[in-house]
C-alpha cells in the first residue's frame, strides 16, 4: 500500500517499522518506491510465509500419506501374490543378526525384509524377495518368488524400471519373458534365443534387450546369494515350513 502513495511515510503508514536506521529516513520520505526495508521486515515476511507454507504442506500431507501408503501396500500385495502364484496372504519377516524373524525387537523401518506367502490351506508356498540392480538406463527393482524347498524361482515381476520404451521395457511387458521365470532352478543362466540346451536354470533372454534381460537375472542371483541361506534357514525352522 505505502509504496504507491506519493506521500509515503506520513499518514497511515502502519507497516513502516518505528526504529529507523540512520540514513534510512531520507529515502523513506522522498521516493514513492521504498528501496530499503528493514532486515526485521524482510526476515519476518519470509518467516511468516514459510510457516504458512509449512502448515499448508503438512495439512495436505496428513490427508495424502495414508492414501499413498495404502497404494504402496496394495501394489506390494498384488506383486507378492503374482510372483508366488497361488499365495492367498503373506507375512513380512525381517532380517536381524543374520537370521529372519517375524517379530524383531528393534524398529523395523531400516531392516531388510522378505515376504512369506501362504496358500489357501495356510501352508507356506514360498518367499517373495525384492532385489534391485543396474539396468540399461537406471536401477531396476524386481520382486520374485522363491521356493526354498526346491530351490526354484517361482515367478518374477518388475516393480520399477526406466528401460528403453519398446526395447528394454519388454522385461515388464513381454509375457513370454516373464513366464521364463516360472519354476526355474537357481542360479539362473541367461541364454540368447536359439542357444538353449534344456538344462535347469536357463532363461531365454529377449532379442534386442539382452542387457535388460541379463540385469534381471543378475539381480535375482545376487539377491539370493545375499540372503538365500538365511531364507532357507528360516524356512526350515518356521512352523509348517518343511522342518
Amino acid at each position, binding site marked *: 500500500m505505502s509504496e504507491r502513495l506519493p506521500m509515503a511515510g506520513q499518514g497511515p503508514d502502519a507497516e513502516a517499522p518505528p526504529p529507523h536506521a540512520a540514513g534510512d529516513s531520507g529515502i523513506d520520505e522522498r521516493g514513492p518506491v521504498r528501496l530499503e526495508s528493514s532486515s526485521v521486515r524482510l526476515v519476518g515476511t*519470509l518467516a511468516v510465509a514459510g510457516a504458512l507454507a509449512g502448515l499448508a504442506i503438512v495439512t495436505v500431507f496428513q490427508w495424502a500419506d495414508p*492414501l499413498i501408503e495404502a497404494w504402496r501396500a496394495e501394489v506390494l500385495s498384488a506383486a507378492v501374490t503374482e510372483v508366488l502364484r497361488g499365495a492367498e496372504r503373506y507375512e513380512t519377516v525381517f532380517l536381524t543378526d543374520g537370521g529372519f524373524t517375524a517379530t524383531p525387537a528393534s524398529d523395523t523401518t531400516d531392516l531388510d525384509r522378505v515376504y512369506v506367502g501362504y496358500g489357501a490351506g495356510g501352508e507356506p508356498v514360498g518367499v517373495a524377495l525384492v532385489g534391485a540392480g543396474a539396468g540399461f538406463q537406471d536401477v531396476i527393482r524386481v520382486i520374485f518368488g522363491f521356493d526354498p524347498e526346491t530351490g526354484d524361482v517361482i515367478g518374477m515381476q518388475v516393480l520399477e524400471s526406466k528401460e528403453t520404451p519398446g526395447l528394454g521395457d519388454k522385461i515388464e511387458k513381454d509375457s513370454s519373458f516373464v513366464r521364463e521365470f516360472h519354476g526355474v532352478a537357481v542360479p539362473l543362466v541367461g541364454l540368447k534365443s536359439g542357444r538353449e540346451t534344456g538344462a535347469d536354470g536357463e532363461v531365454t533372454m529377449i532379442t534386442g534387450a539382452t542387457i535388460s534381460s541379463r540385469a534381471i537375472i543378475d539381480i535375482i542371483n545376487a539377491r539370493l546369494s545375499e540372503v538365500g541361506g538365511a531364507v532357507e534357514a528360516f524356512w526350515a525352522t518356521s512352523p509348517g515350513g518343511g522342518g
Partner: protein
Amino acid sequence: MSPRQTTPQEVFLRGVWRENPVLVQLLGLCPALAVTNTVANSLAMGLATFFVLLGSSTLVATFKSWIPREVRISAYILVIATFVTIADLVLNAVVPEIHRALGAFIALIVVNCMILGRQEAFASKQPVGRAILDAAGTGLGFVIALTMMGGFREILGYGSFLGVPLFGPDFEPWIVMILPAGGFFALGFILLLFAWWEGRKVETVRPRHWPHSVTSEVVGAEGGAD
C-alpha cells in the same frame, strides 16, 4: 503508458495462443520435451503446472503489497514450491501410476521459468482478477501445447491416443517418437507449423494496417514523444 487497458478476454487469450508459453515464448521446454510421450502424461503434467501457476499468481497478486521488493523472488519461489509440493502429494495419492511415470519432473515444476516469469512480469503488478485470468490463460496454453506434443508422439510412437489403439495390429510403432529424440522432433515440427501459420496471417494483415509511408511517420512520432 498504453492508450487503453487490455480487455479481460485479451489477457486470458494472450497466454492461450498469441503468447503461448511453449509455442511462442519457448518457455517450460524441459517438461514439454521430457514427459510428453503419452497424452495422459502430458495432461497430468499440464494440469499440475496449471494448478501451480494459478495458485501462485493468485497468492502473489493478493499479497503483492506485503512482500518487500528485496525478497520478492524468494517469496515467489516459496509460494511456487508450496504449490508444487501439494500438487506432488495429491498426484501421488490420487493417480499414483501417472505420478510414477512423471517422476522427478513434478518437483521440477518449481524451476519452470514460465511460472516465475508470470509472477514477476504480471501477477506482482496487476489486480488479483487480471492475474488469475493471465495465469489461467498461460496455464491453458501450456496444457494445449503439451497435449499437442503428447498426441503427436503417442499416435506415432504407440499407435494409440489416451491408451486407445487407433490402428490395426499391423501398425509398426515409431519407437523413436517416444524416446527423448522424438520429443525434439515433435517440438520442432509443431513449432514449424505454428510459425508458418502465424507468419501466413501476418503477411496478409500487414499491408492493410501499415502502409510504408505511414509506418515511418508513426515510428518517428513515438520515438520523439518518449
